[in-house]
């Protein structure tokens, strides 16, 4: 035996590697197609995409209008789009309305704008509770919504994918587009958080 000790594979790794081996052997998948997907979600596709859209909407009133009218087209202007982003609707937070998104039935999420959803989004506690006690859930996640603010919960049960446009924080008038985008968190675009203050 060599001196290198291999870590034992977990049951999940065995199951995934076995399935991939079988699919490759039978000519059903291309290994490089799988690589491409992994690399895309590890490098290019993530919340930074949605953040760019939000930052542009904050500074460009025409873009904001286009984003609210057709978010899929507005995303494509910035080269953002693809699977699970074929029909996106942007939800504007205001001082009177706070939007929060869920998929109670599975995990539907705007992949091209936000990447892979966090585990908590896909898990039973969030999926079961946010449609029934949204203010409590938001408070647990660190967000206190005033009583006078309407809370709107959006359950992505069909083909539409929702992207929350958080309120622009105060004191950001002089920031560049990149600096603004850096304030837009993934959680603020799901609706469980606010954009960061500078």
């Amino acid at each position, binding site marked *: 035996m060599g001196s290198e000790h291999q870590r034992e594979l977990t049951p*999940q790794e065995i199951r*995934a*590697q076995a*399935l991939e081996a079988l699919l490759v052997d039978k000519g059903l998948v291309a290994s490089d197609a*799988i690589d*491409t997907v992994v690399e895309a979600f590890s490098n290019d596709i993530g919340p930074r995409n949605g953040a760019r859209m939000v930052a542009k909407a904050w500074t460009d009133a025409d873009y904001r209008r286009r984003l609210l009218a057709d978010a899929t087209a507005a995303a494509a202007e910035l080269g953002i789009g693809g699977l699970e982003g074929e029909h996106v609707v942007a939800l504007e937070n205001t001082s009177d309305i706070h939007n929060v998104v869920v998929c109670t039935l599975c995990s539907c999420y705007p992949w091209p704008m936000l990447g892979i959803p966090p585990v908590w989004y896909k898990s*039973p506690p969030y999926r079961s509770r946010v449609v029934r006690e949204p203010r409590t859930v938001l408070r647990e996640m660190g967000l206190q919504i005033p*009583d006078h603010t309407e809370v709107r*919960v959006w359950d992505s049960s*069909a083909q539409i994918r929702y992207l929350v446009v958080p309120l622009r924080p105060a004191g950001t008038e002089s920031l560049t587009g990149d600096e603004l985008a850096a304030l837009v968190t993934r959680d603020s675009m799901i609706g469980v958080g606010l954009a960061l203050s500078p």
Partner: protein
Amino acid sequence: MTHVFMDGIHDLGGMHGFGPIDAARAGHGFEAGWEGRVHGMLIALAVGGQPVSGFRHAIERIPPTEYLASSYYEHWLHAIELLLTEAGTLTREEIVTAQARIASGAVAGRRDVPQAAQIARALLSPLPRSAPQAMPAHFAAGDQVRVRRHFGPDHNRCPRYVRGAMGVVEHVAGPSPVPGAELTREPVYTVAFASHELWGSFAEPATVRVDLWERYLEQEA
């Protein structure tokens, strides 16, 4: 033949007992390498023309105890194995044998098809949009509708927590293939429900919007 199955454990909206949200599981990507491979496998299968359109339904058919005890990407593994064994593309014996080989140190081969990798990458970039289709819509924004309690005996995407409830149509989208009858397309309505309508008078003040296919709705008298 697929069993009749529609109202499974996956329909979690409004259920109690699942405890606190684990906000620490907050990563932006895959938690482990194998998860990324599974995510890629599903897309690669679609690129290869394999029958994966029943994917969500396959996950919904996972037995309740297994569904709740396993992780998200284990659901994906279960669904891929189920769809491909039902299609006769794989057998259970082949899966078990492959797992035993991997467990005893075998290394999987590669099959690279540059064109397939290109197609996969194109699926993750803006896609061509189809021209808007003329669509007769039974309901319009502003209509009061009631969600039906019963549908056809197959896959549906109507959460139990809105069945029987009255709401207001806010938006009309589609047409979109009907779950369980994908050759048929119907409008999808964003319907807004008051929280007290869904959960009773002690509910936290809020509105819940759900996207519902036309056949799930009827006109409110």
